[in-house]
C-alpha cells in the first residue's frame, strides 16, 4: 500500500493505492493519525487505486472519521472502485460517511 498526499486549499487529499487489509491497515492508521495531529482535519481519501479492502481497512476509515470530526473536520471518501464500494456499503458506512465520485468534488465539498 502507498499513500501520496497533496494539499488543496487546506484540504489534505490522500491517494491510497494497493490493498487496505490487516497487513497494511496499521500503517494507514499511523499515517492518518499523524496528519490529524498536525492539524489537518479536513481529509479526502482518494481510493481510486485501491484494489482491495477488508474489514481491517474499515477500521482505518472509522477511526479517521471519528478523529477528524472530533477535531471539527471531516473524513470524506472519493472514487470508490466497485469492490471497495460494496464492502463500505455492506458495513452500512454509506449512511454515515460522505462519498464523492472523484477527489476534486470531495475536496470542493469542504468549501460549501
Amino acid at each position: 500500500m502507498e499513500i501520496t498526499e497533496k494539499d488543496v486549499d487546506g484540504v489534505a487529499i490522500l491517494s491510497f493505492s494497493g490493498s487496505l487489509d490487516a497487513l497494511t491497515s496499521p500503517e494507514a492508521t499511523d499515517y492518518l493519525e499523524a496528519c490529524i495531529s498536525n492539524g489537518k482535519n479536513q481529509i479526502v481519501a482518494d481510493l481510486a487505486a485501491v484494489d482491495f479492502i477488508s474489514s481491517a481497512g474499515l477500521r482505518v476509515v472509522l477511526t479517521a472519521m471519528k478523529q477528524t470530526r472530533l477535531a471539527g473536520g471531516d473524513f470524506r471518501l472519493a472514487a470508490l472502485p466497485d469492490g471497495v464500494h460494496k464492502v463500505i456499503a455492506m458495513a452500512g458506512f454509506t449512511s454515515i460517511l460522505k462519498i464523492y465520485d472523484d477527489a476534486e468534488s470531495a475536496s470542493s465539498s469542504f468549501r460549501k
Partner: protein
Amino acid sequence: MPTSNPEHKRRVALVIGAGSIKCAAALGLQKSLYQAGISIDMVVGCSGGSLYAALIALGTETEEAERLTHALWTRELTKKRSISALLKTVAPRIFGFDENFGLIDDSLILSRLKAAYGEQTFTEARIPLYIVATDFETGEKVILEKGRLRDAIRASIAIPFIFKPWRFQDRLLMDGFMSDPLPVDVAIKEGADLIIALGFDSPYQTRIDSSPRFAFQVTTIMANHLLTSNFAFHNLAHHTEVIPVVPEFDRRIRAFDSDELHYIIEQGEKAMNEQIPYVQRLLGTQ
C-alpha cells in the same frame, strides 16, 4: 489520539424519529432548547417526525405549530377506506392491482398537508432540513432535501398498506420508518457534533379487528427491531454522544390521539429539560 478542537463550534442536530402523534413532543424539545439558549443547526425528520421537523426548520412558533397539528392530524385521516383498494384486492386482474396500493383514501391527508404547508419548499427552511423516506422499488433509504415540503412529508408518512406510496422526484417513495426509523445517521453524515434524538418504540395494537390494524402490527414489529439495531450501530459510530430524549407518558397514546397534543408537547419539554445541563456541558457553555 488528537484532542477535540476547542474553537470548533459544535453543531447541534435535532433528529425526530417515527412515532405518529408522539412526534409532537419535538415541539416541547424545541421550546426547552430555545429557553436554554441552545440553537438547533439542523433538523432531521422521519415519518410522523417529518411533520414537526419541517415546522421547526421553517421557524414556526410552538403555539402555531400546535394549532396546525390539531388541524392536521386527527383520527378522521384513517376513517375513509379506499374503495378501489378493496376492489383491487378482491379482483386484482380486473381492477388492475399495482404499486399504488393503500387501504385508506388519502385525499383528506393531502388536502390537510396542503393547508398546513402550502407551496413552501426546503429552500424556505431557516436551518438545513432533511426528511427521510424509503424507495419502494429498490428499498433504499432516501434523504429528501429539496422540493415541495408537503410532497416530501407525504412520502415520509406513506405508512405501508395504509397510504399508497408517493411519487416524488422520479422515485416511488414510502414511509421512512421502513428503512431508518430514527435517522441519526443523516445527522452524523451532515457533520453534527451533538445529536438530540427523539425516538419511540411504536405501540402494538391492543386488538386486531381490521386489515389496517393487522398491517400496523406487522410493520410495527419490524420497525421496532430495526430501530434498536440501527440506533446501537449509529450511536457507536458517532464521534460524540447521541443524546436520546424519551418523553414519559403516564397513559397510552394512540397514533391519532390529537386530544393529547398539549400533554405530549409538555412531556417533550420536560424530558428535554432534564437533559439540558448535560447538553450545556457537552457544548462547553456551562
